């Protein structure tokens, strides 16, 4: 191949996104703002799916509502854009009805932890075999910057013009306390570690939770004078420290302190379906015998 041929090849290649088989290219450009962390997070998520070696036809993505809720519309997988807060129970139904599927939920902090908070803790408690990725931008982006259950104390939002006065949730702490069998936190800076984490979560069984701290330049950064998306991303990078041994209940996020990242929980415990099967093996024969006495007329 001479130089020109190589150049030609490169030109042709540049027309193709390296992951275009995994995204709906007919839906590009996406609606996210420039400088938003979502593009990087979704790409890392799909890298993780790739690394997990899953048959793409058997991977399903479910989203709720909000900026992150739009992820389902861009991934080239069976994908469901559901209602606000309800992605997790929808995904639970999908997974239990077809256990061959790998089911991922990607949604935002408001979606998963305000309106959907109850579903989150119960899915974690049941240890349903799904992967939940929460893109935490500390605010409601789609609706224009209102306070979320993750908004740090004193941070400004359009519904907290004098600074947020509500104690925020520590998402990894909730996940661990509710019984998730895998819990990790990364920032949008940690794309490789994030994709590794997604791969681990997709391969393991049980309820996996990954929080991704992600910059929202349009509302969070602007309302809080954090500069551009890139500057906020850099800030997250600088403030982050990886500590897999950290106690997830003790590492809340705020406006200035360390963002402790890592894989905090990776425990095997029986999943919902395994427990169901155990119960059936133990008890069903007895029940069937009983019922056959009641009903069998043959």
């Amino acid at each position, binding site marked *: 191949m001479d130089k020109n041929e190589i150049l030609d090849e490169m030109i042709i290649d540049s027309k193709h996104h390296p992951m275009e088989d995994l995204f709906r290219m007919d839906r590009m450009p996406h609606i996210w703002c420039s400088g938003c962390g979502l593009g990087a997070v979704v790409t890392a998520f799909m890298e993780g799916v790739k690394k997990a070696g899953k048959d793409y036809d058997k991977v*399903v993505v479910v989203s709720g509502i909000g900026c992150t809720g739009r992820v389902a519309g861009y991934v080239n997988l069976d*994908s469901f854009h*559901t209602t606000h807060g309800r992605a997790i129970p929808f995904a639970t*139904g999908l*997974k239990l*009805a077809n256990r061959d*599927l790998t089911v991922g939920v990607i949604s935002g902090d408001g979606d998963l932890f305000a309106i959907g908070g109850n*579903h989150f803790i119960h899915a974690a408690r049941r240890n349903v075999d799904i992967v939940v990725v929460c893109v935490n931008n500390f605010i409601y982006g789609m609706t224009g910057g209102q306070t979320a259950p993750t908004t740090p104390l004193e941070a400004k939002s359009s519904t907290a013009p004098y600074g947020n006065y509500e104690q925020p949730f520590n998402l990894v702490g909730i996940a661990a306390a509710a019984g998730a069998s895998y819990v990790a936190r990364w920032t949008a800076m940690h794309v490789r570690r994030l994709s590794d984490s997604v791969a681990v979560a997709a391969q393991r069984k049980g309820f996996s939770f990954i929080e991704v701290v992600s910059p929202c330049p349009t509302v969070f950064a602007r309302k809080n004078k954090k500069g551009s998306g890139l500057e906020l991303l850099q800030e997250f990078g600088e403030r982050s420290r990886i500590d897999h041994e950290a106690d997830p209940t003790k590492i809340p996020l705020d406006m200035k302190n360390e963002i402790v990242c890592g894989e905090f929980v990776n425990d095997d415990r029986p999943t919902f379906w395994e427990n169901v099967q155990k119960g059936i093996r133990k008890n069903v024969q007895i029940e*069937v015998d009983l019922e056959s006495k009641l009903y069998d007329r043959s």
Partner: protein
Amino acid sequence: MFKPSKLHGEFFMQGDIACAEGALAAGCRFLGGYPITPATEVAERMAYRLPILDGVFIQFEDEIASIAGVLGASWAGVKALTSTSGPGISLMNENIGLGMMMETPCVIVNVQRAGPSTGLPTTFAQSDIMQARFGSHGDYGVIALAPKSPQEMFDLTITAFNYSEKYRMPVFVLADAVVGHMTEKVIIPPVEELEIFERVYTTKKPGDYKPYELDGKNVPDFAKAGDGYRFHTTGLTHDERGYPIMTEETQWKCVPRLMEKISKHVDDIVLLEERDTEDADVIVIAYGITSRTVLPAIAMAREKGIKVGLLRPITIWPFPEKRITELAKKVQGFVVPEINMGQYVLEVDRVAGKYVPVKSIPHPGGGFHKFDDIVKAIEEVAHG
């Protein structure tokens, strides 16, 4: 050898249990639910039966999750049921809209109790007629069936599944606490003798398939998750690819069809029972348990020489407009007793009111109409 999926014979069975058995006979293998009086027995029966049939029972954290899980299960290709009562439907309504918009087959059983709010949890009413029709926001067509007996709890749950698969939508069984808790003879035919409508899956190849392409029909063919179609679906206004396109034009294509797939098939969906309507001067329109409790009153009125007939809409929605118009043109009037403050009568009056008087007999719930009140209303209509 005992084959639980082939349960058949004659049973003395509670309505809620018959409903669960009807669902199983229809091929339902998923129940997502939350305890609520007077519907709990449906879920309890499913919790007992589904594991034996390799099905999935899950008690969710609330009714919102229950219906969301049911929709998810349906997209995995499994027939799914949820059972609840009025307060549960109130919580489900948002995702019932999602089910309508994504065109997701499933069945929702509402064993009605008296409201509003917590109301009379352990007694009965028929007060969710309009809630079933208009509960979720926006416009969409609705199918709702009203059983009058445990036998019909079985039969109509199967019909509800058939309609839900045929028209790709959530379908309501609008029972009530009396029918749900009553125990009567239920005949369960052998499963081979049941008419079961199975979901129509696309025969197209991935790449050629668009989830909401109609190909000249009113209902698009289905593809389930995991079959390689890599489809997208959304609660947003969408085009035939399932992609969100938020324009007035797409709204025109997307929403009216959700009503047309019902309005164009009313004759296929409407089920009616009629007694003595051919020569009737007065017709009592009553559904569900009320269609049984009015019978003595009708007999009393007939003894007084009034020709009274009974029209029982088994299909509550879509409204049996055609038949009621026909009857309105030849009778002297209608009497509509229902255990609510006058809901279905609004539709009867809309259709028949321009021809003849339509008399509502309301009841707030927790009891039945008094025979005398019904006889009096019949007399009033008969004697103008």
